[in-house]
């Protein structure tokens, strides 16, 4: 097994939650357990966040632990770095991943290198939460998937959940982690899994096993992938929304695929990747982000370097296009069933 679930997880009663509720619960639990956890960000206080992820927390924990900030991502992340240096465990929210760029210097040059440059005198234990990805008609400023910018930085961890169950456990682990973590939440699946067939009625998490969230505290270790589905025909490496799209497309095509949800991009669960590709001999990498220099390029390179003699076909890569995320043509951009289907056919043609 890729991951040993904590024993308590199986004992705790579970109930269906959507991803927002699961994230809210993780934040609530961590604020309760650790008085040093503070939440800050645009609209996160009284209002509870534009996606409601922090709803009720200010009322419960007070204004000095959950508070609104000026619209200044450099200030949000810069102040969080200072708070972390003081000994707090800030969980800043960047309202949309598309807004994170003004804070990049504070993340890349400061948070990521604090431990290294001070030889451990100062650290920046903080979790930057941010909704990312498209499929909600957000246009080019509310749809981007900038994860590769962060996986490229030495000293940052990047985590992306694909279910409410994982979102809660991974967020708790991220907050407990002593390194800075970028926690991207695929907002298209906040309310239900999305299989890429955008004409179909939307689903809720109620009917999905990943929507079943144990009560209370549990954490899912960073750096551990999850086998979504075991199979032998090919390996799919994906994360976030694309897990659900891959599942649906491969099921529709009747292919016995092994689907791996990476969950953490850095540090990557390379063992899980190698084991699966060595078994299936074929590998499909999927992400929603733009193609060139995307995280898929890293995955393809790793598979080529480490599994080359097990490969029976060139590794396939399905991604968003190298354009800004268009508004009206959102579904033309999105790496949906047709694009994935073609790649699968190429992988399996011999």
């Amino acid at each position, binding site marked *: 097994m890729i991951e040993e679930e904590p024993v308590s997880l199986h004992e705790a009663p579970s109930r269906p939650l959507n991803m927002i509720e699961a994230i809210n619960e993780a934040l609530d639990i961590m604020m309760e357990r650790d008085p040093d956890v*503070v939440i800050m960000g645009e609209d996160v206080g009284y209002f509870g966040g534009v996606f409601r992820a922090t709803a009720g927390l200010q009322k419960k924990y007070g204004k*000095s*632990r959950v508070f609104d*900030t*000026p619209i*200044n991502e*450099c*200030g949000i*992340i*810069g*102040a*969080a*770095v*200072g*708070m972390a*240096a*003081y*000994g*707090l465990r*800030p969980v800043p929210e960047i309202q949309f991943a598309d807004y994170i760029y*003004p804070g990049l*210097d*504070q993340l890349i*040059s*400061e948070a990521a290198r*604090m*431990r*290294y*440059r*001070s*030889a*451990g*005198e*100062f*650290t920046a234990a903080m979790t930057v939460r941010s909704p990312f990805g498209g499929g909600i008609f957000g246009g080019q400023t509310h749809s981007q998937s900038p994860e590769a910018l962060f996986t490229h930085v*030495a*000293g940052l*961890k990047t985590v992306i959940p694909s279910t409410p169950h994982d979102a809660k456990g991974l967020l708790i682990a991220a907050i407990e*982690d*002593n*390194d800075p973590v970028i926690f991207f939440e695929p907002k298209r699946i906040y309310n239900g899994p999305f299989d890429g067939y955008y004409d179909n009625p939307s689903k809720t998490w109620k009917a999905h096993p990943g929507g079943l969230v144990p009560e209370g505290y549990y954490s899912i270790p960073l*750096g551990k992938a999850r086998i979504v589905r075991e199979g032998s025909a090919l390996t799919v490496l994906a994360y976030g929304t694309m897990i659900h799209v891959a599942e649906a497309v491969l099921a529709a095509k009747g292919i016995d695929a092994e689907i791996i949800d990476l969950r953490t991009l*850095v*540090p*990557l669960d*390379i063992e899980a990747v190698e084991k699966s590709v060595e078994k299936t001999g074929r590998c499909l990498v999927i992400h929603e982000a733009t193609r060139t220099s995307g995280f898929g390029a890293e995955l393809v390179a790793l598979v080529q370097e480490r599994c080359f003699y097990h490969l029976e076909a060139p590794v396939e890569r399905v991604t968003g296009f190298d354009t800004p995320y268009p508004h009206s043509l959102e579904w033309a951009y999105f790496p949906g069933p047709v694009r994935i289907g073609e790649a699968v056919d190429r992988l399996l043609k011999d």
Partner: protein
Amino acid sequence: MADDGTEPTDAHRNLPPLRLHVPEPRFRPGDAVDYSHLAIPPAGAQPRPDEACSPGETRPLCDDLIRVLDDEHRAVGPWDPRLDAETLRRILRAMALTRAFDDRMYRAQRQGKTSFYMKSIGEEAISVAAAFAFDRGDMAFPSYRQQGLLIARGYPLLEMANQIYSNRADKLKGRQLPIMYSARDFGIFTISGNLATQLPQAVGWAMASAIKGDTRIATAFVGEGSSAEGDFHAAMTFAAVYNAPVVLNVVNNQWAISSFSGFAGAERATFAARAEGYGVAGLRVDGNDVLAVHAAMRWAADRARGNAGPTLIEHFTYRAEGHSTSDDPSAYRSAQERSEWPLGDPIDRLMRHLIGLGEWSEEQQVAMDREVAEEVRAATKAAEKNGILGQGLHHPFHTMFEDVFEDIPWHLEEQAAQAIRERRIKFPEWEG
């Protein structure tokens, strides 16, 4: 067609063309320097409002210049911090030690013992006063020219030199450019090297102290040049919004490498005057008058600790030497600027003040200069035993891959193995 702005029009065609103003400093190499345009108010003439005053009450002080030491080197006026003679001598010694250290390390760089150095000649009052005006439990977020802060706090010169040589005893494991110290136990934050990033961090640190209900405050330093960074605005906005217990210092030494302060806006307003727009208290201080600097910092520290809010202080000073060992200021500014600088030298001014008080003598000064030079020499000699840059006496190789994360992930272990293999190929006799 009506000229009401709704249609394109050529109604302005007779106006002179627009001109872009590109600031130009008054003096370039070879120019005679005349500072008569600088308004230097008399010492002691600046009012000292209550520390808990409204930010607006400090507005006149943002265009003024808080000065304590007058032309006869007497301490005058309401800003006189009334420090006892022993404290004044300690401040004098810390400034002298800083200057001696700068001198020695500058030469060490020229001798090839390290890659880089930055002196703070002429600006010692600002960093040394900070060590006395703030508590050691407070956190100072320096830029790269506040070495006086470490020295005045008693941080070992040996450790500073080890860091500058990036040797095997360097506490920062040879990872940082020389002078980018980190001294948590001395209340000094790790120095970035990126400009102005420490400002919002200091505000966040101060906010954290307030969140925890502690009594500690933060202070940060930025040059006038990098006060143009967005981080400055972020820091001022957050400081104002949360009434953070923080003191933000702009060290206006007139030059950012070769760009004079006009490129940060000095032709339009003082740096202290920016405070008003944020609703933050602002003070403008003679940065070469250590008593004035101390008084302003202590005023702001008391204000912050009393929950009365943040302060922006502009320290008006002059960068007497190059930006760094990589810079040659004779290529862009007049050499006369330094000798003509109307606010004098901070060490000289405090020395004369102490002599005037009957608490010091020129002989004592000479003896002290000798003593601090010897102290520096001993420390740097000791550091050189631990290695100088490029000599191979650095930290164990594997430390390069440590502290990227708390634990070393597989990809860094693999890369560490690669690095060690490369080294063995290049140096077969190497045992590391």
